[in-house]
């Protein structure tokens, strides 16, 4: 998440002081990403150093008010215009774990897949419940939280579908291995992928 660009975008709306920025940010994003006030001031200092915001006096109660500069406004425009970059390739512990598991003897890949599937479905249940509760409550600021929940639901669903595919591949692979052994005259079952041995 870019705090820098988020604060700039809020300042484009109108000049604000640090604490106002924090409250405004949390309101507009459904308190999804709590922001600590120290981060806000550090970021404002850097934005000022880079010429993207300028101090604009105080509000009469001792709060330093910041306003956006022309350079800052241009920065906000290009932030909104540019797609968020994907880290390439995304680090995915699950994919790494499975990739290693299939190459190691004696690892029950099906058991790993099933354990992950249960955990993912449980998370999906929680997201779905939270989404249902949020959709029925109609509070302001919920729109952002709904967007986040939708995103989590889609990501988790994709993970489960990928796990289903991995499992189907394992089964195909085990069947192909068994068929090859049979045609070679080897009959003993040494396939490490068969999870039935644990039941």
């Amino acid at each position, binding site marked *: 998440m870019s705090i820098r660009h988020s604060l700039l975008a809020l300042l484009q709306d109108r000049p604000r002081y640090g604490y106002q920025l924090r409250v405004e940010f949390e309101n507009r994003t459904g308190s999804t990403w709590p922001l600590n006030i120290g981060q806000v001031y550090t970021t404002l200092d850097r934005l000022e150093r880079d010429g993207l915001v300028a101090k604009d006096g105080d509000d009469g109660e001792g709060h330093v008010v910041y306003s956006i500069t022309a350079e800052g406004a241009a920065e906000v425009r290009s932030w909104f215009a540019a797609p968020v970059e994907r880290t390439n390739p995304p680090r995915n512990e699950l994919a790494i774990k499975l990739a290693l598991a299939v190459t190691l003897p004696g690892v029950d890949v099906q058991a790993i897949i099933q354990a992950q599937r*249960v955990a993912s*479905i449980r998370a999906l*249940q*929680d997201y779905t419940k939270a989404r249902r509760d949020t959709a029925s409550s109609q509070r302001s600021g919920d729109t952002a939280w709904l967007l986040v929940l939708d995103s989590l639901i889609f990501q988790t*669903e994709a993970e489960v579908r990928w796990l289903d595919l991995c499992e189907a591949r394992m089964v195909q692979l085990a069947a192909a291995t068994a068929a090859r052994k049979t045609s070679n005259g080897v009959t003993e079952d040494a396939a490490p992928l068969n999870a039935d041995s644990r039941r």
Partner: protein
Amino acid sequence: MSVRGPQQVLELAKVSRTFGEGATAVAALRDVDLTIGAGEFVAVMGPSGSGKSSLLALAGGLDRPTSGGVFVESTPLAGLGLNELARLRRRAVGYVFQDFNLVPTLTAAENVALPLELDGTATKKARRQAADALRQVGIPELADRFMDQMSGGQQQRVAIARAVVGQRRLILADEPTGALDSTTGQGVMEVLRSRADAGAAVMLVTHEARHAAWADRVVFLRDGRIVDQATAMHDPTMLLAQAGL
């Protein structure tokens, strides 16, 4: 075996179902224990051939187990004759099938009222309850339409209305979102969820994780056995931490 309490709507106790005999026998279900309470929504997931649909057929008395017992509201289905079983199905159990199973020559309201009328409910009362069920699924205005005048999503809502009409305490759904787009599919889940929240026991067979996630409990079947169950934590404060936000 667990104790059969008054809140328990469905119980499968050590249920096995084998098709065929001898060397060619196929065990579709093996020693399955599963109970669903009033107000509980359970989803059953598993790969093709894992026994999902067999489980649903046994739960609704459409099929009988090779061994073990099926109880609907403490009534053992094995003790019922065919007529009694049909009566229990019409009164207490609602089904939603993937291919709807609606009668094309009847209107939406007539389709929904059919099980009630077959069970002896006066036509007027049955139609009133049908209108109520169609309202619950969000299509009261389509009561007089015939099936060929409705979209797939609308027909599926009629099928769900027929499954929930009257005081059905057990609702069984087999891939009810099969042919539907994702928005309509979500609508189906909302109806099933609201029936469970109103006190019905709901069992949904699905291969879609996002639909199973509407359930209180997800049961995983493999090779005819229950291998895992997932229950939601219902702790929203954990969600963000899990998501790394």
